[in-house]
């Protein structure tokens, strides 16, 4: 009616004035409708209904009075909203009429829309429609499963069409050894490798011989694993460890050469993190390639005052934590980006498990990929700028990076948009080298000592290690300089500690005092 006409002209927040301005449109329409004598009666009735609804507190739907009085209404005009009540599937908005007001469908004679009389049968009708909601609008698990199958198939098709064609197999070389963090690192690497869509062989070289720990972790691998034991034990000092890892990798390369394994060799350290794009990118390598590695050296270092100095230094030249190939504007390799280790040299970790920065070597092995045919004794097309693998590493020669395998390092291919894209990160996070962990991370249920948690002291504090003592010395000197209040506070805390530990064996308290010193 008139009200609805006004409502409709308010559509899209058009100002009312414009509706009146349009003038020619609204006025004739209104004029054609209100020819009936009931023109005053209906607005008055509507006002009455509004008052009733205001009093009753719910909306007295126009629906009701339309239905009750529809036979009396003037023959339908175009601006009259047609009500379409469908079957029980329909649920109207809760704001509108209560269910009791909905008349049974039989009562309602839907007036045929006059406009479409002039057209051939139109199924689509203008006006208010019900909102169809099915009775249980919840996802059906079978359909969800089918949708996921569709998604998987679509993604496979995308990979087939836009991804790598004819992927070559990948040979992943990983040096590892059994320690606390091995489960963390190796499981992460295992899951990354299981996601790689290309054929893969994993060569795991283990220092200290094959161990049950490593075998337990690798037993759940879906990629084929080649476990290679290496006789020497992993040393505790980082520099020695890097050297041993290089020898372990060389050992793996020799295995590849003996067995003539075909593919692209990728050096994946167990604590590194790889993206999936890396595995697609290395397919482009022809003989030897280099990628950019993000160096996450600040893995455990807390904020120290010297960081401010470092940041000031940053403003002069940016110390990007990246190692990788450097190219000129035409895309040719001209050099190498390395991570500037000078600012951290003093605070670098020497022993495995110190809670400070671990520095990488100049060029990490993980930033290089090699076509395994380079390693074979004979391969067609093998270039002559590669040293024979048998001549490498003998007589105590130290191999620092794969570049030492080459006679000419300029022929390395830069990958990843000439090193601009970083697709893997180098990270070293280790616990103290003597830290214990339950075998295969299964807690043996028979615990000998069970102490309440609140008062659990460290039952057997291990002896101080070299670096710990050095650190304590520094602290000790610093404490002398500090104010008295601080020292008194610290003294108090120590005294409190002493009191608490009175119950426990004296050995502990002796040790704690010794610690404080």
């Amino acid at each position: 009616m008139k009200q609805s006409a006004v409502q409709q002209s308010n559509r899209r927040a058009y100002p009312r004035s414009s509706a009146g301005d349009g003038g020619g449109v609204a006025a004739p329409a209104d004029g054609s409708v209100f020819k009936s004598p009931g023109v005053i009666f209906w607005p008055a009735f509507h006002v009455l209904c509004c008052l009733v609804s205001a009093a009753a507190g719910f909306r007295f739907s126009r629906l009701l009075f339309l239905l009750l009085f529809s036979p009396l209404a003037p023959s339908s005009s175009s601006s009259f909203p047609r009500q379409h009540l469908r079957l029980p599937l329909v649920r109207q908005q809760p704001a509108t009429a209560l269910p009791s007001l909905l008349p049974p469908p039989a009562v309602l004679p839907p007036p045929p829309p006059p406009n479409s009389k002039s057209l051939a049968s139109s199924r689509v009708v203008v006006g208010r429609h019900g909102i169809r909601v099915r009775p249980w609008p919840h996802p059906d698990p079978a359909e969800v499963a089918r949708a996921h199958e569709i998604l998987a198939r679509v993604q496979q098709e995308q990979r087939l069409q836009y991804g790598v064609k004819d992927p070559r197999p990948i040979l992943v070389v990983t040096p590892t050894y059994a320690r606390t963090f091995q489960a963390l690192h190796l499981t992460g690497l295992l899951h990354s490798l299981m996601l790689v869509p290309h054929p893969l062989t994993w060569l795991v070289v283990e220092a200290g011989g094959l161990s049950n720990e490593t075998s337990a972790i690798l037993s759940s691998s879906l990629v084929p694993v080649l476990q290679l034991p290496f006789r020497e034990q992993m040393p505790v000092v980082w520099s020695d460890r890097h050297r041993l890892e290089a020898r372990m990798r060389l050992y793996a390369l020799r295995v590849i050469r003996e067995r003539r394994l075909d593919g692209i060799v990728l050096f994946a350290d167990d604590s590194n993190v790889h993206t999936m794009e890396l595995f697609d990118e290395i397919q482009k390598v022809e003989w030897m390639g280099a990628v950019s590695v993000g160096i996450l050296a600040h893995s455990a270092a807390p904020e120290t005052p010297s960081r401010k100095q470092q940041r000031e230094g940053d403003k002069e030249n940016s110390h990007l934590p990246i190692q990788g190939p450097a190219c000129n504007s035409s895309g040719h390799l001209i050099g190498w980006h390395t991570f500037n280790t000078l600012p951290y040299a003093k605070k670098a970790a020497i022993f495995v498990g110190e809670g400070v920065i671990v520095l990488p070597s100049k060029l990490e092995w993980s930033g290089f990929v090699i076509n395994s045919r380079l390693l074979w004794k004979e391969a067609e097309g093998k270039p002559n700028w590669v040293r024979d693998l048998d001549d490498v590493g003998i007589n105590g020669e130290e191999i620092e990076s794969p570049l030492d395998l080459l006679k000419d390092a300029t022929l390395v291919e830069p990958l990843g948009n000439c090193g601009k894209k970083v697709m893997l990160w180098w990270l070293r996070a280790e616990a103290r080298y003597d830290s214990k962990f339950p075998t295969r991370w299964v807690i043996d249920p028979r615990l000998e000592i069970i102490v309440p948690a609140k008062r659990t002291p460290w039952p057997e504090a291990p002896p101080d290690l070299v670096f710990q003592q050095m650190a304590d010395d520094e602290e000790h000197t610093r404490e002398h300089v500090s104010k008295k209040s601080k020292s008194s506070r610290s003294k108090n805390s120590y005294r409190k500690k002493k009191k608490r530990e009175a119950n426990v064996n004296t050995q502990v308290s002796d040790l704690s005092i010794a610690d404080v010193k």
Partner: protein
Amino acid sequence: MARFLLPAGIEWLNPTKQITSIARSRSPIPGLRAPTTPCPFPPSAQRNLPFSPCKDCSFLRSRRPSLCKRRSEGVMAGGFRVLPLLILCSLFQGILGEEHQPNRPTERISGSAGDVLEDDPVGRLKVFVYELPSKYNKKILQKDPRCLNHMFAAEIYMHRFLLSSAVRTSNPEEADWFYTPVYTTCDLTPNGLPLPFKSPRMMRSAIELISTTWPYWNRTEGADHFFITPHDFGACFHYQEEKAIERGILHLLKRATLVQTFGQRNHVCLKDGSIVIPPYAPPQKMQAHLIPPDTPRSIFVYFRGLFYDVGNDPEGGYYARGARASVWENFKNNPLFDISTEHPTTYYEDMQRAVFCLCPLGWAPWSPRLVEAVVFGCIPVVIADDIVLPFADAIPWEEIGVFVAEEDVPKLDTILTSIPIEVILRKQRLLANPSMKQAMLFPQPAQSRDAFHQILNGLARKLPHEESVYLKSGQKILNWTAGPKGDLKPW
């Protein structure tokens, strides 16, 4: 001479034979395989075509529909058509072979679109552009330059394209079509929505001007003129469907061809012979948001937009005939459906990561979502009963998109998950075809096979005009005083 080429297709070698059946079994041209593809014209499109395809016509006729027109006097010399026909037949072999290759990233749309989308209109028609005073076009644009960016901007860009196009002629005597550049959708509210209240008067005033200044309007009463009316309900010039239906198409445009975005079967505001075009979507903006094609599509169904128009229809039921509200109520908790009313900045990128994009009706059945879905390779799920999609005679929408009836919306998840995977992959291949995407866009400057050229192709397919449109002197069909009284006021 012209009879030589009559209903024929393959049968041109035997001009005396009557064509009564589809020429499947006889292939007089050596090397030509019997056609196996079904009629490429979806039944939905067949009503709006000026010719009747796939009925009493050979398959080849359906590929070159202009051949199928029954005309007593052909404008085109029959002889010219033989050579392209031969080339076509030899290509046909190659095309059929192409279809059956698996693992192709794109698929050539077989049937009509493979050729018709790639038609070049230059040389097939001539358009004369009337020089109207700038108050009809330039001044309006100067008053509000926002008209260049909204979804109705096709009228402005079409004008600019025609001014510098090769089909333009300055000799109206040789023109096949006449274009009147009047920007009727450029009177914007502060919010940016066009007001249609002055448009009928503007159009009427323009027509009065051209009918008095040039003789060509009166020659045919507008039957060889075309107008671009991209508003919600085309030339009904109202944003409300009921009012638009009541007004009907402007009476003076009764005989003219309308190029509009609105298309719905059995609706007053869609004239027979109209050309339905896509709404304008900014091509550069869409190109700027492209992501690498190997980014895996991980969203099953995607939609961003209103479900309830709270400002105008808070209860729901009017807006979108309740279909959008139904989508929300049924699927708001479904993890497969990524639907919301937010306006994310990554809207275009998200569409490229989705397999299906919903394109439900709003206040009008058309929306720019269809264009965006096609450009970004997302299969459009059209929920609008009886809609006529852009260039329906050239693009086989049934093969590219999914059509869901409004009453089936509660079962949308069942419908979409039960589509066979080969069908989905095929649709994606068809969408990856660059000619599909190009046909939906209005790039500046115009490129070949874009929407401008498809409009011209559509106009060219309607040629030549029948003799009956040319009125005898003194004959009048249009009633210049018909329509609401308010329209008669001068503008």
